[in-house]
């Protein structure tokens, strides 16, 4: 990572820009990440939002943002960003706006939009090299509608549409890889529980132009079934168990920014969430637990082989 102004947590912004008292649930991991991201991005931003929990951040006549906001629809926030960015460029070119009035174009969506319905619009925006930052808060389900299974739901998780004894039979889609395959300017995973890593990545993203993704795992007390005061702890566990690799990709190279020295067993992460309770009671589903652990081990085995750098 190049020079950063975030050397220690003491360098993190002391003031918080995003207003409080929003309609998000207590302990919302998505909001936790957004707070930190917004502190760094600042108010010279226009947030282009897709349908999801965060749509209720701005409810007439209130907004927690100091900058601008445009709600679009579930599938087309990146296309909204395209229209706004292009229009700002046209206004700049024609002298109808000054450079000082320019804004960062920021897309804000959940995983349902980012991994699924909005993927076509996203892919198009990346392939056109649109200069925008995409923030996805990934709560691993359609949160706003009650945590149904989405393309981001992990294997074995119970959701409103997978209530059976084994949970969701499919696997979480690899959005990081999908983005990286487009060769965008920047892709990074973050989590609110690792604020320094997050701050450096947002800083990094801001220094680049072109399509950039900040993909934040968003522990969701409501949808995952845990106490709101455990959000940070769960976020840390996601990293320490290796469930959520912190990494970034630039110029076709992927770097892991935090490799857990000794990974904790994934059970530590799973057993404190209601959505995985069926893997432990009434009886342990060892085969599923082993399968989940094996996939994590295989992932990190490959990473270690390459010395934390994927080719």
């Amino acid at each position, binding site marked *: 990572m190049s020079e950063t102004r975030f050397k220690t947590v003491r360098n993190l912004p002391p003031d918080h820009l995003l207003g409080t008292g929003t309609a998000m649930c207590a302990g919302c991991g998505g909001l936790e990440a957004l707070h930190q991201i917004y502190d760094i991005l600042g*108010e*010279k931003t*226009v947030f*282009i939002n897709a349908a999801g929990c965060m*749509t*209720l951040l*701005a*409810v*007439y006549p209130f*907004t927690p*943002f*100091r*900058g*601008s*906001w*445009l*709600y*679009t*629809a579930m*599938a*087309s926030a*990146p*296309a*909204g*960003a*395209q*229209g*706004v960015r*292009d*229009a*700002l*460029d*046209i*206004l700049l070119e*024609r002298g*109808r*706006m000054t450079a*000082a*009035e*320019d*804004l960062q174009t920021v897309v804000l969506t959940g995983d349902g939009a980012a991994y699924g319905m909005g993927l*076509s*619009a996203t*892919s*198009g925006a990346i392939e*056109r090299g649109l200069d925008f930052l995409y923030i996805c808060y990934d709560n691993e389900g359609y949160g706003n509608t009650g945590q149904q299974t989405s393309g981001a739901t992990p294997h074995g998780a119970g959701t409103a549409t997978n209530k059976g004894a084994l949970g969701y039979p499919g696997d979480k889609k690899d959005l990081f890889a999908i983005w990286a395959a487009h060769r965008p300017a920047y892709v990074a995973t973050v989590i609110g529980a690792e604020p320094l890593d997050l701050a450096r990545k947002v800083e990094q993203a801001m220094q680049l132009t072109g399509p950039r993704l900040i993909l934040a795992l968003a522990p969701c007390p409501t949808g995952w079934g845990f106490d709101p005061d455990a959000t940070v702890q769960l976020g840390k566990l996601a990293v320490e168990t290796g469930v959520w690799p912190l990494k970034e990709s630039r110029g076709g190279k992927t770097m892991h920014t935090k490799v857990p020295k000794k990974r904790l067993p994934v059970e530590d992460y799973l057993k404190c969430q209601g959505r995985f309770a069926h893997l432990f009671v009434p009886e342990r589903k060892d085969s599923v637990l082993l399968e989940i652990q094996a996939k994590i081990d295989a992932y990190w085995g490959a990473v270690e082989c390459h010395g934390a750098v994927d080719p």
Partner: protein
Amino acid sequence: MREMLTGNGAAAWGARLAEVEYLPAFPITPQTEIIETIAKWIDFGECNCRIVMLDSEHSMITAAGAAATTGVRTFTATSSQGLLYGMEMLYTVAGWRAPFVLVNVSRGLASPITLEPDHNDILAARDCGFLQLHCATCQEVLDSVLLAFRVAEDPRVRLPVIVNLDGFYLSFTREPVKVPSVQEVAGFLPPFDPQNQGFRAGTPFSQAVAVLGGTAYSYFRYQSHLAARNAEAVFTESAVLFNETFGRSYQAVETYCCDDAEVVFVMMGSFATKAKAAVDQLRAAGQAVGLLRPLLLRPFPAEAVRRALVGKRGVAIVDQNLSPGYGGILHSEFAANLYGCRDVNPVLVSFIGGLGGRDIGPEEFFEMVNITRAAVASGCIPPPRLLYTESELRDMRKWQSIALEHRSGGELQ
């Protein structure tokens, strides 16, 4: 300058003369020629506009609304499946009060999939909040694009507008079109003034935020309706200025030989020119008939329609669309508009014709007058009449037997 232009060419010229700055695009027959024409002008430096190919019409309409709401003059075009694919965003961007112009080249909707025109696509967008202009000639297409920008951007309106033209019959038909000069157009259409809309650092702007409860929701919805209602007067005002500038006169409702007519046809779009020709023939045969054609469908020119139909005995409404299980959409609009008017109470007879580009022949117009007169005389109003000839039915039976033969042939092998 007078040129032979297709309807698509005329739409492109309208956009060029309006000096559109942004064109989000996606291809679909029979619209594609519009975006290709403008793209070529951009490539050869004749048009100072930015074109961007989106991944879908849903994205395209989102981008168009977003750009207009950021403050640049925006134009886009689609057709049929594309219009419906973007339907969610038609409603959404109209609610943003983003003023821009979308040309729809009407084409029948799947299923069955077809390329040829009717109006089910554009009428599916009837309630989305866009204003609608329905063109009958290539000249009208060019002129309507200019009128549409003026009305859309008026501070009393600030709504997007759809200019509709029929696929093939207008899109690919060359007609002589007067193309005004840039200077002339500048006198009619001032540069886009986004007023209080737009995203700027230092002046935060929250657009399209959620509302909770019906109070705020209803307020904003009512605002859109009232703005659309304002658009009728703004259209009329703009048409007067248009006539002064270019010497061509337009009305929200075109009437042809209506004054002394006993029976009046109602039609929209290019097929209305067929009705016009039929009116001439019917008049030559001694029949007092006329034609009424709404150029403006949204806002609905209710008063102008009523005025044109005062004292008429029968109205033959020829819908180039079909609402299965009801009949013609225009018929229901007219029936609703005339219901309970004491001095305007003609018998309304509903006809469905021109679906998927099916022609409507002169003899069918004659027959429609007969049926309408019979309904007037008897007071018995027939159910919607589906225009179809015996020879068409014979063709259809032939094709069915071929299709069946292929199928059973396949099974035998």
